[in-house]
């Protein structure tokens, strides 16, 4: 009998401390953070599932000295518990990224109500972006998350765990994608690069493609040599090593030519090789001049200064052209 009393006492006195009915949860799909005049301004996109299986969302806004205070203020007139585990995207303004990135990362990692599986991007007009997508009867968080996942173009996809890895590792500098609005359309074609946790420059689409190649992020890469020739990679592998005070960067691009190519493919391959080497060299020189290292080259050089680097690209052609085959046979 004593055992049963102890058992029930334990259950009744310790249980139910985090009890939440699932129908009382408000699913936050996007969270946007801005920092202006020593205050955090937040925008929450709340996702709702209608009975007829249609999804809709609405926006809550709040301001506060801290992120928590801002969220509390946003939910003052709201009768549900905010649930951030399903968060799809965290938007940070340039101002907030420059001034309060450490606070933001601390908040989302300390709070058990956040998962590590959401995208992070820079966006200076989050309300406009979210409302734009809501008007199209879509959920902004899901829309952006799918855009990051499914797009063919060379963008970078940074989730909280990647960002924390770069933030805490001294060998890397942070890089975050930038969400822009052009003619009522959401575009992700740039990324902000950081130096000592301050945004110092942006990378364009071409630079992002090279960034992906250097980090083996396997996205399709199109290299235009002139108007008629396009080389498309199907697979690439970049090896980086450091020997005799020289950093060797050896990208191996396997792919095919999309447009008609003259009979001498070997000559064109050499041309592709030279062209790609130049592009990569220019990209790395740019990073060196900015003193930012989002690729993590410091891992290889062990913080040695005044090092040389050498790029040697291998181009492997996957399919020979039909004309080439016809003539050779």
């Amino acid at each position, binding site marked *: 009998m004593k055992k049963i009393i102890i058992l029930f006492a334990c*259950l009744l006195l310790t249980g139910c401390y985090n*009890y939440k*009915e*699932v*129908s009382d949860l408000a699913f936050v799909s996007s969270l946007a953070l801005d920092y202006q005049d020593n205050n955090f301004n937040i925008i929450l996109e709340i996702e709702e*599932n209608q*009975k007829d299986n249609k999804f809709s969302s609405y926006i809550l806004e709040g301001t506060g000295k801290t992120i928590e205070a801002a969220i509390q203020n946003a939910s003052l007139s709201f009768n549900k518990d905010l649930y951030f585990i399903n968060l799809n995207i965290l938007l940070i303004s340039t101002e907030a990224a420059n001034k309060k990135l450490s606070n933001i990362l601390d908040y989302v990692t300390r709070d058990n109500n956040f998962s590590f599986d959401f995208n992070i991007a820079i966006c200076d007009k989050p309300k406009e972006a979210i409302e734009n997508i809501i008007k199209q009867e879509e959920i902004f968080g899901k829309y952006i998350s799918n855009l990051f996942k499914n797009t063919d173009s060379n963008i970078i996809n940074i989730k909280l765990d990647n960002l924390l890895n770069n933030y805490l590792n001294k060998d890397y500098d942070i890089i975050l994608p930038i969400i822009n609005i052009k003619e009522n359309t959401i575009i992700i074609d740039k990324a902000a690069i950081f130096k000592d946790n301050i945004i110092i420059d942006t990378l364009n689409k071409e630079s992002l493609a090279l960034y992906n190649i250097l980090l083996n992020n396997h996205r399709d890469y199109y290299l235009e040599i002139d108007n008629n020739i396009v080389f498309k990679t199907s697979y690439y592998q970049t090896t980086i090593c450091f020997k005799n005070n020289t950093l060797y960067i050896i990208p191996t691009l396997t792919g095919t030519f999309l447009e008609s190519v003259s009979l001498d493919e070997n000559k064109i391959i050499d041309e592709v090789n030279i062209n790609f080497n130049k592009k990569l060299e220019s990209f790395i020189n740019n990073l060196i001049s900015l003193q930012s290292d989002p690729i993590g080259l410091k891992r290889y050089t062990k913080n040695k200064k005044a090092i040389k680097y050498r790029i040697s690209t291998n181009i492997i052609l996957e399919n020979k052209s039909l004309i080439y085959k016809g003539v050779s046979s």
Partner: protein
Amino acid sequence: MENLKIIKDLFTHTPDLIIRPIKKRFNTIYIVFLETVSSGDRVNSYILTPLTLPSKNKLSVKKALSGPNLKIINISQAEEYLCSGFTIILDKQNIYAVETKAELDRGIDDSKVEPAIYGPKDSLVENINKNIGLIKRRIKSSHLKTKNNLVGRYSKTNTSVIYIDNIAKKELVNEIINKLDSIDTDAITSAGELKQYLFNENKNVFPPMKLTERPDTIINALLEGKIVILVDNSPFAIILPAVLADFINPTVDDYTSALNTNYLKVLRMICFILTIITPAFYIATTNYNQETIPGLLLMNISTQRFGVPFPSIVEAIIMLFVCELLRESDVRFASNYGSAVSILGALILGESAVASGIVSPIMIIVIAITFISSLIFNEVEINGAVRAWRYIYLLFASFLGLYGLTLAFIMMLINLCSYKVYNLSYMFPVSPLDFSYLKETLLKVKRKKQDKRSKYLTDNVRKQA
């Protein structure tokens, strides 16, 4: 006639007691029998006809009815013999008994509780001798021993302890025979009743012995070194000791190939876990650990629960209660009404409950999985045990979420591992690990590789060359 008076006194208000006086020379002999348990034809042909034949009129009863069927008894045994269907012949001070039992039992029928597609179709009946016959038909060996015992002050129920003497452990046989001898009760009417006297441990809901109606299951158990108890008037045999693995793995598995059977065995083990934890897991994940559910599913659950007035734990208990109610009414009610109950249940559970907003559709799915998983066990006792643990899990999960579920699981594991049935751990053959019995139950291997019996059940381990 002093003896006749004693019998009449014993059987007052017994209208089926028939007394037929027959004049025999200068004496009157009395033929006494109970017409409800005796066959009138047999009384006529075995007793009345021989005794009334003019040629045998001068012979004594003993000589007129000579044969192995005639027993000389004393007056104290008369009651028992009369009740057993014998006819008593009172000749002065001599009392004779002639077996004239009526055939009150049904014929051997198909197995209803444990059906098998490819296995033998016959099943035990209410007649203990027929049941022993069904066993002896399958084991033609003098090593098959039967120890009879009468249990019950009034019922005098015939029980038989059956074992194979060079396989079963003698200590276990003696222990069970002693247990049967020590039973002192008014009546034992079935195997289910008797088994409650055979095991004193009443703190555990899991059954320590198995009831079966299949002779092939009995044979398998006997050949493993287990002991079988048959009870007269009961179409079920008690197999003991029984462990958890025996309930999850029926004998019918032996009739199909190893690969297909192993798939079913895994399925059954999953069902055993599912039927216990499904409602508790649902409660724990939706009320405490929402992060474990994929976002889209969680949103769907949230939408479905919209408008349900009860917390999900109350919803789960209501649904479990209604399902238990349906199952019980289905079992108790006459089978002709069974379909009506099912249709009513399906209507209440499937449509009306959801439409009226009492429960959410997802809860119907959860409870349906729970009950469909439990239907693979045909043993009522194991279903009872599963039900009890289902509520314990539900209680822990409703207070502590997945942490509570883990606590309940540890509790069940401790309970099962510390439970011993006749010195055999209930988690056998997993703990203690025994491959020979594992191959018989939880995992099926090729027939040729099942060459040993478990050393925990017998000392005679070699099964085949």
